[in-house]
């Protein structure tokens, strides 16, 4: 790309899976608009560019940075701060940066526990029960690997964020829409939404976009999806399968329910919801069809893993953020 006066665009992955990158590539020909309107200044997945180049840039010289991935380690944190300094608009892009996503389920256990598990699996050949050492002396000298942070954090738990774009990953049609918007803003044809707002998503919840028919809800028993044939017309939750749709921000067009599988909540909490998990929890509990403590307990045995179910994507972004074992040990 020529480096003429085009505004700079950056995209970075911290602790993420790369799905956000793929989602951006999945805007297909629109990627050429990006190329036409921006100078891609920094985007590790697609191009060689070095931190030192970024460090060399003037503060605020990058117009738009899409930051995906959670903050798992010192480097993530450092780059987050670096890019915050260098960017006019820092967007928390994708579930990891917004609320921790599945990697944040690790916040339910300690790092030690994680390492122990990984190094004692069935196929691990580890007679001396070795664990990785942060500094280890080999014949030739000393080797270092970093200590891991105890828990995963969201981007805005580390630096101020201008916009939030949820999704695991954000749906490509939403990415395209946002890029269009920014381009229009550049051409003075549109206004940016107020800082701190959620972009590339709807203002209601997934049910709003779900075509299934819904009735008053009463749950007497929770079903596992593999044990029933899901009626393609009827609300999945009403069929007893826990669906996160009611509590999850709209904007994705409900692809999962449309494909016969429940919403798993990747678009995160609805506008203004303090804690995603408790919103979902309270909604589900409210429609449990019993007033008898023993029976209620029995019905809830159908949710053997409430924390995992209610906080699947949101643990790092939740009010408690991690389990006691994650920080006590």
């Amino acid at each position, binding site marked *: 790309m020529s480096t003429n006066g085009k505004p700079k665009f950056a995209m970075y992955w911290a602790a993420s899976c790369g799905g956000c990158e793929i989602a951006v590539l999945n805007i297909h020909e629109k990627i050429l608009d990006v190329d036409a309107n921006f100078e891609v200044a920094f985007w590790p997945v697609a191009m060689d560019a070095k931190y*030192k180049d970024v460090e060399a840039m003037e503060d605020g010289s990058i117009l738009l940075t899409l930051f995906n991935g959670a903050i798992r380690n010192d480097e993530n944190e450092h780059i987050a701060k670096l890019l915050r300094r260098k960017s006019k608009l820092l967007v928390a892009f994708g579930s990891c940066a917004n609320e921790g996503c599945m990697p944040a389920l690790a916040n339910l256990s300690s790092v030690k526990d994680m390492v122990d598990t990984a190094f004692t699996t069935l196929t691990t050949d580890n007679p001396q029960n070795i664990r990785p050492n942060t500094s280890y002396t080999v014949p030739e000298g000393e080797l270092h690997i970093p200590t891991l942070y105890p828990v995963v954090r969201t981007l805005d738990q580390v630096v101020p964020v201008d916009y939030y774009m949820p999704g695991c990953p954000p749906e490509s049609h939403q990415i395209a829409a946002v890029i269009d918007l920014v381009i229009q803003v550049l051409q003075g044809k549109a206004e940016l939404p107020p800082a701190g707002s959620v972009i590339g998503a709807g203002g209601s919840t997934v049910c709003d976009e779900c075509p299934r028919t819904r009735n008053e809800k009463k749950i007497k028993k929770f079903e596992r999806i593999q044990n029933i044939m899901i009626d393609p017309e009827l609300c999945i939750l009403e069929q007893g399968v826990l669906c996160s749709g009611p509590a999850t921000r709209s904007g994705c067009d409900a692809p999962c329910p449309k494909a016969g599988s429940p919403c798993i909540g990747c678009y995160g909490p609805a506008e203004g919801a303090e804690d995603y998990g408790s919103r979902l929890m309270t909604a589900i509990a409210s429609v449990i069809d019993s*007033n008898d403590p023993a029976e209620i307990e029995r019905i809830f045995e159908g949710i053997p893993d409430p924390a995992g179910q209610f906080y699947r994507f949101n643990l790092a972004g939740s009010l408690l953020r991690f389990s006691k074992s994650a920080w006590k040990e």
Partner: protein
Amino acid sequence: MSEQTDINKPFEPVIIGFTCNWCSYRAADMAGTARMKYSPNIRLIRLMCSGRLDPTFVLKAFAGGADGVMITGCHPGDCHYVEQNYKALRRFIILKKTLQQFGLEPGRIKLLWASAAEGALFTDEVNKFVEQVRALGPLSWPTSGGGLERMFAVPENMLVKEVTV
């Protein structure tokens, strides 16, 4: 959140209590009118009904430094709004189950039914709960301040320094 930082002082748990306007809050009032004594560790929030209790409130309390949370309402069948306290019961059961996965001892959260007449019951149960939480020790969830930074503190020699060319 043990508000006194002085480690010599005994641990004084902070308890948040949610009361319903019609029964348990009046039970508390009655305890007052009758000059019954209970531990000052509990601080009450008045809701119209235990059915108003959003688990968010409880999580916020713990995240904000509470060592225990007590949810109170009318006796089953006595709800001023017919049966909303049953909804509170349903939420309480799953919330408690969830909190256990977060490593919170079940003893830090309690559901109590108390009628407007049961000032004495309210008093006893508060005292019992405060002692129970005291025995569990401080929770001091890191998000209530202080603790969090320490979790991510990197030793000085490991700190990031800027590139020097």
